């Protein structure tokens, strides 16, 4: 419904790391052990609140297999945030992070906030990638890092919301050009200064135009 901002996210990472499950956990608060494998891109959305402002997250969940990357890539640049996911129980998914990251950096706008997610933290007994490794990788590449479990929901909310917070801060700092939809940010219909809404506070600081909303 009404939102101050809309952020577009993309979830990327190897096949089978739990991208769709993370999305489902975040949007529907449930875990589905058996689900369809993603073909192309699937879509989700949820409303969150940051700094008292309703923010709509529009999430594009991509297929992990390389054959779909032509599609995946086409979505990078329209995204404000990316969750780059690996599976802590499969070393190779961690090893592929560099490729994913290069890909993302290359095809996204430079301000895209990337959150590194080590998923399946509930399977600690099968862990192949230590937490410290994930942290180190994130540090090295300037990412935010978090271990999550789509199954138990641990940190799933935080992963999405923290990413949104970073984006939000960047907006406050004026880093993002919020009037350029290519950055994956949209100003809510009722939050542009021209159509103020008393209900949810006055959104859209820093912006002088009522951006590209429909």
């Amino acid at each position, binding site marked *: *419904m*009404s939102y101050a901002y809309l952020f*577009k996210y993309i979830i990327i990472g190897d*096949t*089978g790391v739990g991208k769709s499950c993370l999305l489902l956990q975040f*949007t529907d*608060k*449930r875990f*589905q052990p*058996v*689900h*369809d*494998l*993603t*073909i*192309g*891109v*699937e*879509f*989700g*959305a*949820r*409303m969150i609140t940051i700094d008292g402002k*309703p923010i709509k997250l*529009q999430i*594009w969940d991509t*297929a992990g*297999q*390389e*054959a*779909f*990357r*032509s*599609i995946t*890539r*086409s*979505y*990078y*640049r*329209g995204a404000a945030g990316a969750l780059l996911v690996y599976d802590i129980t499969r070393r190779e998914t961690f090893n592929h992070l560099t490729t994913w990251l290069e890909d993302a950096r290359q*095809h996204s*706008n430079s301000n895209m906030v990337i959150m590194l997610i080590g998923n399946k933290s509930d399977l600690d007994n099968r862990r192949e990638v230590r937490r410290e490794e994930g942290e180190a990788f994130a540090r090295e590449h300037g990412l935010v890092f978090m271990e999550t479990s789509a199954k138990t929901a641990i940190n799933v909310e935080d992963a999405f919301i923290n990413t949104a917070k970073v984006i939000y801060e960047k907006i406050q700092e004026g880093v993002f050009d919020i009037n*350029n*939809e*290519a*950055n*994956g940010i949209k100003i809510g*219909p*009722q939050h542009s200064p021209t159509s103020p*809404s008393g*209900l*949810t506070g006055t959104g859209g600081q820093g912006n002088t135009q009522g951006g*590209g909303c*429909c």
Partner: protein
Amino acid sequence: MFGCPREAVRVKVKKCETRHQPEYRKFSVDPQITSIEVLQSILIKAFDIKGEFTVSYRAIDDYGSETYLFLLSDWDLDAAFISASEPYLYLQVNLKPFGETGDCECYWEQNAQEVSTRQETGFPYKTPKLPGLIMNKMERTLNMVQRALGNLSEDSSHQQSAQPPRPPLTDAEFRRFLDPIGQVIHPKELRAVIYFGGIEPSLRKVVWKHILNVYPEGMSGRERMDYMKKKSQEYQNLRERWKVLVQKGQNVGDLAYVTSMVRKDVLRTDRHHKFYGGSDDNQNTASLFNILTTYALNHPSVSYCQGMSDLASPLLVTMRDEAQAYICLCALMRRLKDNFMLDGIAMTTKFAHLAEGLQHYDPDFYAYLKSHQADDLLFCYRWLLLEMKREFALDDALRMLEVLWAALPASPPNGELNLAEVPFPPPSPPPSPNVKHIRENAYTKVCAIRRQSSSASIATAGKRKTVNTEDPSLQSRDSTETNGDSKRSSSPYETFSEPENDLTTARNRRNTESTEKCLSTDTLSGRSKRVNLSELKERLSLPGRDQTKNNENDGEKKCARVVKNLNEFLNFTSLNRSKVMPSDAEPELRRVSSESGVIRVLRDEPSSPDDPMDFFPMTTSMTRELRLELESLDRQVFGPSPPSDQQCDCVLSKRESDLIDSETDTELARCSPAADVFVWENPLHTLQQKNHPATPDEQAELEYDGEILEDQNGVKSVTPIRLLKRTTRSESASDSEEAESWHQSTTVQESPIKQSVQEHCEEATELTNLIPAGTCEDQLGESSLPPPHEFGGGNPFLMFLCITLLLQHRDFVIRNQMDYNEMAMHFDKMVRRHNVIRVLNQARQLFAGYLRRHSSSSLAAKSDSVNV
């Protein structure tokens, strides 16, 4: 979004749970800030709900009776707030038994219809286990839902939605298609019967092998049995070869890659269906694993790609036999493997044609999509890749698939069906893992197209301003990569084209030369990509593909960067083109050429206001690229397209007003002699390079994505670039088996494909004539869509299935003003929930009208082509 005036809405909720007393809660919400998510979380808290649940709200239907409609989205919620019966908005929460996947159950609308439809028609399907409680309500709301989905606009559709045009093929009927020794007689009629009514489930196992082209032509019943026995044994051997390696612990390289990929995917393929249900060691899931692994290892040019498990699953469900399912998969993949090629060409063609088709049948909706930057139709990816398999519940998908297969012309293998492209493991110990090799090569190769596509699709996906001009380094890399390729393939191309086009060889050569000249003037260097054998082979059979890609990349690049160069490019193309179209001062004239069948409709007018999508099916530069590529392919390989005084002008004028934005530009293109410069500069440079939001002006941008022609009268016009797909049957040249079944009399070699489609279609047309003619769509004008052997990459019926889904939801989408994401989510939610009978009926109707138009226009075209 509807601007609900109320400050607060009082809500009364009733929670229903089987075997429990209903509970009630009351609260108020602010309609301005309450989203469906918020509401759901309120409900979760209010009732302390643990499992899944559905929410519906009370509304008064047109007949004044009370009904409950489901709340699935913010849009529903808006509607609920607006229609909230005073003084309360009455909600009902239904808990679902925990443990159900929620997949089949929670989205109710289509299921409800399916359920009720099936009851009416008495189909022997098991209905998805909908809680009875919901089901009853569903049936009550069926009418409303149907109205909501906007399907009942046509008078006839209500009746049609209830029943297929004929009952499924029965055993007794099938026997009538067999002669005394079991040879199939009248195979076309057999297909027609299946097309209209499907096959009785018990008979599928037998008949699918026929319509999937498993059997060579003319086999007796006995021979078929022996054949299947032999083929099954062959499969067992193929399977054994990698199984042994796995057992020996040599699970490395390709084998490791394929098995791990496939294993992950079969565990999430149709697991909600009882056939694959239960624990992960389900024997059928294991069979699916074996089938896919064997296929991938023995078809290195394809290997394993996600989506194949969805294609194989129904085969196994029906065959109930691993070997037979494998054989069917091989037959099916002959036609579909191009979908999985990393070059993306087959898929791009399908997207392009789908856009073209939608534009044709529903320009308004298309315009809506365009205004929401959703006209890339990427949310239909799954539809196209899996040929709609996942859009229907599995049992329904079986029906849909057999109808779809039956709509295709027969294409029996020439000799035996090949079960292995390169038997695994390859005879000599492969130094480098095959699969990896392919992946890497294909990967680098496709990067070219993709990088452009990525920027482009992004552009379409909502932020089209940041298009590909941003990164020249990438682009030059792209062109570099493609260039070498063209060199490699140019000679096979010539060998191919010469014998092939007796009539037009000379001209083709000249065209080729000029292409090459154009290329050589460019400073591009060789492409880094290495081609593996099978790819090369494929390329041999697809002469010109890469070459033109190259050429086309050129054009793309230049047009994005320097107008001068672009114009050079355009001049070059117009050179060719003016040969192609000798004299024609009438820019609006659409030409139909069927001489090669490749270009059927050429339009000189840059932006026919009615359906620019006919030639600008996708808005991405990738498709533009491919369009160019294929266009020039056509130019080179098939030479000129003869004009035919055709059609569509009426349609043009009829819908001229639909797309106002393009009008001015059309004017320009029509009358400005300097239009070439203007036209190209304007859209590409002002629109694409700037980062401003997409506007309807993009229409203009796209419409000028064509070639500027100067005809003999000095009148300039723009020939939009159309995406042409001659390459659908990549095997057809190398694999004569395919070619044999596709036959076209007008040209010698290239067209075998067409003829049989043509014949087949004509026949289907006769049969479709039995159905009441589609009302509106018959008036849509002449065959501005590609002909049947091209449309949808040779599967025109698939296009009509997709268009039907879009049409059936267009009102809902528009009414709720859904944006890209919401639309995509809506269709994602509809996975497995579309009503197969309704969809098939409407698709058949559209298809019939299309075939009728094409059979008449192809007659005209045939006579034209004689004059070439």
